[in-house]
């Protein structure tokens, strides 16, 4: 296990405000203690409605969202949040069904942690999504495939219209667009975008590509921009 202090990465500030939506009191309390111990400021909510209300009421830097919640489940909360915010969301999935993971990601989560988790895992995932939400170091705008990508402003325009991408979708597009024509394996994208060291869940990549296509492609079922290279990975066409 990696020690918290030696996590790779940069660009995260202390005092980031997290919302932890979790119905189990023990997990909520222990996770709060652990997250506070490494410098986050943590607010908690005990069910989906309260969580959603709190995100609406005041912005957070990231949301940790349990899937199995009373009143409104995590997928619903996630979909609702995505209607008005691109705040990074990490799902806590108690079930390890791939379906659950995929549904969670499709409803707009940036990453997920399987229960039971050790706190360093959760913290590492949180830091990774926060880093993604921060502006990339190279701030030069990129034009590729009819898209104008401005890392500094964190915006993507297609034909002059701004697209609402989450931090993960933006970072994924940015990685692909920096080297158009190059094939990226899922493993490489997992490293670059999600900070997984090796063989992370490739669902992360596949689902995020799907969501990204839905936003940037003219016809998402026949992608012209982001191509799948069978058995290898993905490529952004120069076009």
């Amino acid at each position: 296990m990696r020690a918290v202090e030696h996590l790779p990465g940069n660009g995260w500030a202390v005092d980031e405000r997290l919302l932890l939506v979790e119905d189990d009191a023990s997990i909520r309390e222990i996770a709060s203690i652990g997250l506070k111990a490494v410098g986050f400021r943590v607010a908690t909510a005990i069910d989906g409605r309260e969580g959603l209300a709190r995100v609406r009421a005041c912005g957070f830097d990231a949301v940790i969202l349990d899937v199995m919640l009373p009143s409104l489940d995590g997928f619903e909360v996630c979909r609702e949040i995505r209607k008005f915010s691109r705040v990074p969301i990490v799902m806590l999935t108690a079930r390890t069904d791939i379906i659950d993971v995929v549904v969670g990601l499709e409803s707009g989560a940036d990453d997920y942690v399987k229960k039971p988790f050790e706190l360093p895992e959760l913290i590492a995932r949180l830091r990774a999504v926060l880093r993604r939400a921060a502006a990339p170091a190279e701030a030069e705008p990129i034009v590729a495939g009819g898209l104008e990508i401005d890392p500094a402003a964190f915006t993507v325009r297609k034909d002059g219209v701004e697209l609402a991408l989450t931090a993960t979708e933006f970072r994924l597009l940015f990685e692909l667009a920096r080297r158009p024509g190059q094939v990226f394996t899922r493993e490489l994208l997992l490293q670059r975008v999600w900070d997984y060291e090796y063989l992370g869940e490739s669902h992360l990549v596949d689902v995020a590509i799907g969501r990204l296509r839905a936003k940037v492609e003219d016809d998402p079922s026949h992608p012209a921009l982001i191509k799948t290279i069978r058995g290898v990975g993905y490529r952004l066409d120069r076009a």
Partner: protein
Amino acid sequence: MARQLLRPGRRRGRIRPGGLRRRLVVAFVLVAAVSAGALAVASYLLVRQARLQGSLTTSAVEAREDLNLAATITYPEAGGFVRAYEQRGTHVVLIFSGGRRVWSDARVNPPIPPVLRSFVRQGQLGYQRMDVGGLPYLVLAGRVPGSAAQLYLFFPEQGIERNLAQLRNTLTAAWLGVLLLAALVGRVLARRTLEPVARASEAARLMAGGRLDTRLPAGAADEFGAWAAAFNEMADALEAKIAALSAAQARELRFTANVAHELRTPLAALVAGASLLSDQVSHLPDPARRPVELLIADVRRLRTLVDELMEISRLDAGSEPVQQRLVDVRSIVAALISARGWEDRVTVDGEPLTLATDPRRVERILANLVGNAVEHGGRDIRVRTGTDGVHGCVDVADAGPGIPPEHLPHVFERFYKADSARTSAGSGLGLAIALENARLLGGNISVSSDVQRESVFRLVLPLGPAGDVSQR
């Protein structure tokens, strides 16, 4: 038969389909042959008897007249007398007292049978059937009234013999016809009769093949109808039993999955708490430190166990998705070894190996196999990759204590541990999970072991796509 029905397939090589049908046809033909033959022979004998009797009666009447006629004949007239008979085709021999003979046809001078002669000498009218010159004759003889002369009349019976021969031929032909007809009818009847048997054996085969809803058409008001009803009853019972068993098994699997799942929430709090504590161990007062370390280790073990229970119950549920990529097995092995810090205990060699398969499952299998070797074998673990052109194989060998032969068949069983004291740290599910994953990928794992020297686990996976696996 009964044995074959009870254990289909076991002696399949000796079942001759149609044997029973042939036997039925043969029996049918035999019965027809014997009864028709008996009937034919009996009627032939009756006809023959009647004809011969009729011929005798007619001839006797004639003979009596001829004897009366002969009474008026003297020796010198005898020549003309006997010649008159020749025109009717009847031969005549007239023997006068003193032994002088007059015969009607020089060719016909047969020896008179002595029995007949003595009969005649006593004054009786006698008859005998005999062949003369190869032809059948009825010989009637008597003493001429009022003299010692004897008259022998040879009545030809060729006509009767011809008729009887005709009758024999006709009856034989009819008998053969009956046989043929019996064979044909027997065949049809046997097929009809045995059709339910054929249907039943087909149904039994279907059931053995897993089609438990197979039923026979019942309703015929005969033995086969009753049999079909009994068969269907048995099939109902079997289907219900198997459904109950599968339901019980499904319940058991669901129970395991539910237990594992229900354990997750409290376990999640435990794991999160333990991970918090583990950062603080060094700050704890001495008496608390060791218990806390043990607690943390036990929580991790519990987590592994629950994770693996979840994993194996997902594999049991059979709904696991399989991805397919080009997978460089050597780099997976290298990555998992370095991730777990086993570099100084494990060496990798062999040819490079690329498979089209699910990388995470391959990683899982190999991590479990190498982990098992690290845990049990200890020293000199070697991972060797290779291929035979169709399959890729990975050997994980260790120079450990080996596995005693009595344990070898059980190492892939769930919670099976060779050392009953259960001292080892593994959950007891690692190898079972590895095997289930290998099978999911269309491969297998085998194990061989040489006690005191080494154990080798061999993973074999197809090089190319394993059946119908979706590409993601």
